[in-house]
């Protein structure tokens, strides 16, 4: 009989879950240079990231956070907050969920979607910093592109569906209702499906 008592999570994740770093202890974010929040409570996770920036060097000097979510959500925000300290704003903006997951020592596939909000919230905080400091031209908003005109489905929604487990066109349709009317977008949405699966789930 196997005496398997391992967690489904890595030791690093477990450590960050048990001892989260850089939690924002107060509810006051006024002392920070940029604040971003992503996700929502109904979906089960929400993350808020607050950064302090050395304006001259454009380097993140401090990063605090709050997270409502599961163990992977908490641990991924914690690990992210350590990763970004000392990073330039540009480098931090380009951090991907994959970078965070790798730092965590991997995540079960069905938990990847819990960890993608941290870097989103970080980008929102960086944009917020640029907005506050009169640099609107530096704000990098990810504009959603409508892929399916009939059902008004965007490329962001396709990405979210992939993170939530969609792997085939049929599953994508189940998640988004994409291409269920005229079907003209099928070629493009299948290409995006491939792209996001590759982006998030291929080593």
């Amino acid at each position, binding site marked *: 009989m196997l005496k398997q008592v391992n967690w489904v999570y890595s030791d690093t994740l477990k450590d960050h879950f048990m001892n989260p770093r850089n939690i924002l202890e107060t509810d006051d974010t006024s002392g920070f240079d940029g604040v971003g929040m992503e996700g929502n409570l109904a979906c089960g996770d929400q993350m808020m990231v607050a950064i302090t920036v050395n304006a001259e060097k454009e380097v993140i000097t401090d990063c605090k956070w709050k997270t*409502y979510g599961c163990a992977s959500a908490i641990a991924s925000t914690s690990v992210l907050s350590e990763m970004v300290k000392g990073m330039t704003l540009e480098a931090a903006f380009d951090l991907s969920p994959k970078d965070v997951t790798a730092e965590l020592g991997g995540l079960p596939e069905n938990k990847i979607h819990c960890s993608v909000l941290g870097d989103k919230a970080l980008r929102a905080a960086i944009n917020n910093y640029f907005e506050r400091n009169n640099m609107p031209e530096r704000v990098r908003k990810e504009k959603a592109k409508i892929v399916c005109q009939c059902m008004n489905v965007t490329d962001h929604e396709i990405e979210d569906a992939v993170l939530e487990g969609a792997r085939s066109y049929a599953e994508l349709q189940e998640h988004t209702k994409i291409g269920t009317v005229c079907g003209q977008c099928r070629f493009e949405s299948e290409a995006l499906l491939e792209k996001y699966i590759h982006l998030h789930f291929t080593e």
Partner: protein
Amino acid sequence: MSTEKPETVYLDHNATTPLHPAVKQEMTEAMELFGNPSSMHGFGREARANVEHARKTVASFIGADSANLMFTGSGSEANNTVLSIFSCSGDSCSTGSGRTGEKGETNNRKTIITTRIEHPCVLETSRCLAGQGTPVKYLDVDRYGKINMDQLSELLTDDVGLVSIMMANNEIGTLQDISEAARLVHEHGALLHTDAVQAVGKIPVDVDDLGVDFLSMSAHKIYGPKGVGALYVRPGTPFCPFVRGGHQEQGRRAGTENTLGILGMARAVQMRSEEMEDELHRIRALREQLVRGIESSIDDVVFNGHPEDYIPHTVNVSFPGAEGESILLYLDMAGIAVSTGSACASGSLDPSHVLLATGTDAERAHGSIRISMGRDTTEEQIGYLLEVLPPVIRKIRGMSTAYIGGNTYAQTG
């Protein structure tokens, strides 16, 4: 506050239970019993005698005649079996069993009514059957998880063959008034099935008092082995085997009997009949201790389920601002096992369908945990949980975007 980890504390009895020591002993001895109950020789006869003795024990525990009790591979199989009887047209069936009962009058009644808070083995099966053309109607529940008898009356049209209502809910413990439902259902010429997996062995259950036509139960929820359940079938009701091709269980379920499991189940039932009543008093007291302890040590808690009609073993509570999987895993680190209605722990994206059906918002459902007690639960264990839980909730709320300054919520994005 001492947070030293004592032994492990198992508070997930609605998921499954440890074997009763008497069951373990019975099954160890029963391992020698290898004969096929269908064989005519001595080995077979010995196995048959034991299986039939077990059948009597289990049947009498729910007030049934042993001729009307069949063993199944699980509670889920029992539920699947009942639902499948009513989706079968029987017209083109060449097995000779069809779904015509002795009364034979339910042939045109194909519609199934069930509730929104059933176990997935009923809901998934209902969805599957609906996809194949069986009409399925759903009963709503109120904020406490109770069905409404007026709605049941409305839904009971002439085409309804079966109504399936779980007796005690596995997640929130709410009890339905099965005998009242049975009366209504029979008035309209339909039959009533109850999934009593979470009720049998916790509170008294009698098929005649309830007036049910079908009743499902499971061994592993009552300190018996996994992989064995039972289905009560009232005489004269239509039946069609779910597993076909054998004469076992009076032709109702093919497959050589799981003698080991069946004997274990019977011993589990016997132990229930000896221990259940005293245990019920004890569990009621533990529930008081648990509920009061949570209320007095943690702010902003919401108890889910019915305030009076419940299985006392089950306490379901939401901690707004805290997410359930985190609560579960922090408790797990302290050696305490509970379950959660959060989506994150289930592998799906939706939180508990039961809590959502009661009108609980998604956030409160994500922040729910279920504490289910059993025969081995002690006052000390509940005391330990009450010591560990408040700091866990404080810790999680302290880092949560959803819990600010006591009882307000952050703006949702």
